[in-house]
């Protein structure tokens, strides 16, 4: 048996409807590493990320975390993954702080939360808006609140789909450093982003190589 | 048992024949409609194929 890296994918194939998007996809990720998934729109980058975190069912393929299939691990794997998709997952009626408190109580499992609510809000620059209902926040602020969720939950594997959308330049820089710290601390990250960002040590992954023209 | 007696169905002609008629109608529709649909499918597939070949 090849020595399994922490997060390994082999022979993954995904479809949208009856159209196979990509097949035979393999990638390896170890502690402290990050991958930037590249490729033009419509290739299936989002479908790939959703399949990896268990949100969508792949056609076939083998996704392993710590050597075990994620489909068998189910909840154990979910306790180690944090997913930020196109939608922020922020409830408009709740205030910024309440949203994070809810995230902790509903999603925290195992060791205590990495960072307190106030500290997390401060880190993403939302300290002043803690008591404001989320629906009054701007798109960029909501995005930052979604990313603050990454800080309050202790999750080794980050799967981020366009995390920088609607963020200003300063926020992009601070988020990049945040991911850097996460990697330095032994965390892993899979990122899809059309916006430029620098992150030392991040590997590029071109999805197009797995997209045959005709299934 | 003359033919007309047969048709009369002991006075229940209307009910018996409309019941059998409706059942026959449903059988007919369920036979014809899928055949028309499959011809339509063939036409659209051929049209898409021709269009695909033009693009290549």
């Amino acid at each position, binding site marked *: 048996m090849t020595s399994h890296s922490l997060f390994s994918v082999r022979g993954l194939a995904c479809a949208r409807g009856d159209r196979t998007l990509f097949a035979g996809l393999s990638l390896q990720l170890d502690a402290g590493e990050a991958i930037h998934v590249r490729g033009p729109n419509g290739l299936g980058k989002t479908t790939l990320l959703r399949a990896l975190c268990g949100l969508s069912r792949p056609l076939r393929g083998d996704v392993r975390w710590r050597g075990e299939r994620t489909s068998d691990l189910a909840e154990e794997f*979910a306790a180690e993954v944090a997913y930020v998709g196109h939608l922020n997952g922020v409830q408009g009626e709740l205030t910024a702080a309440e949203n994070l408190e809810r995230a902790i*109580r509903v999603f925290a499992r195992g060791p205590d939360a990495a960072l307190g609510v106030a500290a997390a809000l401060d880190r993403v620059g939302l300290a002043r808006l803690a008591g404001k209902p989320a629906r009054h926040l701007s798109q960029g602020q909501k995005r930052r609140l979604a990313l603050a969720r990454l800080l309050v939950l202790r999750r080794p594997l980050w799967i981020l789909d366009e995390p920088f959308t609607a963020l200003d330049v300063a926020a992009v820089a601070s988020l990049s450093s945040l991911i850097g710290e996460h990697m330095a601390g032994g965390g892993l990250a899979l990122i899809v982003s059309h916006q430029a960002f620098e992150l030392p040590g991040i590997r590029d992954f071109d999805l197009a190589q797995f997209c045959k023209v005709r299934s | 048992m003359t033919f007309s007696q047969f048709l009369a169905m002991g006075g229940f002609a209307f009910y018996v024949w409309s019941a059998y008629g409706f059942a026959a109608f449903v059988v007919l529709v369920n036979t014809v409609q899928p055949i028309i649909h499959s011809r339509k499918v063939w036409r659209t597939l051929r049209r898409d194929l021709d269009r695909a070949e033009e693009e290549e």
Partner: protein
Amino acid sequence: MKGGLLSAMAAVFTRELLVFWRRSTEVMTALVFFVIVTTLFPLAVGPERHELMLMAPGVLWVAALLATTLSLNHLFASDYQDGSLEQLLVSPYPLSALVFAKIAAHWVLTGLPLALLSPLLAVQMALPTKAIGTLVGSLLLGTPILSLIGAVPAALTLGVRGGGVLVSLLVLPLYTPVLIFGAEAVAASAGQGFASVAHLSLLGAFLAVVVSFAPWASSAALRVSLD
């Protein structure tokens, strides 16, 4: 602060109530609908108490059933739009447990108020007072079934065009047993005072079946809808 399944479910439950309370207009629509629909019947049929009394169990139950159907969209629709539903699917806790907490919260906000409000409308519909207790009892037992069964079509039609009407088309055939047992229970106790225990126990049995089945089915439906 170690998170456990129960605290996660409690969190979903309380947050759901909090969110609905701040958007209380949606909660009220189901109740107001219940009142309006019930009030229409005396206008349509005439105020004779004898006639109203005969129809009262059926009218009250159909109105409660339609009010619940109307409010089924509140279960998942807003969480689907803002993405918090997607996060539930990635949570480390069994989805059916979290969905059960959401359905329970939905019941507290629609089914329970309907049951508590029904005596007022029973008086309006000239229902004999001896049957009002059974009415509230049957609604308390029946409306959770409506919320539980309704969660499956509500999940299946997320993001589907014409979803609202489609939910009622999918759910009403499944509601027929609840309607039969519920309305019959009230009619029995309103009539010659038959013991409506049989009807209520059947309702309870049906609730038990549905509690064990519906959370799994609606979480499977959510996974399909968000695939």
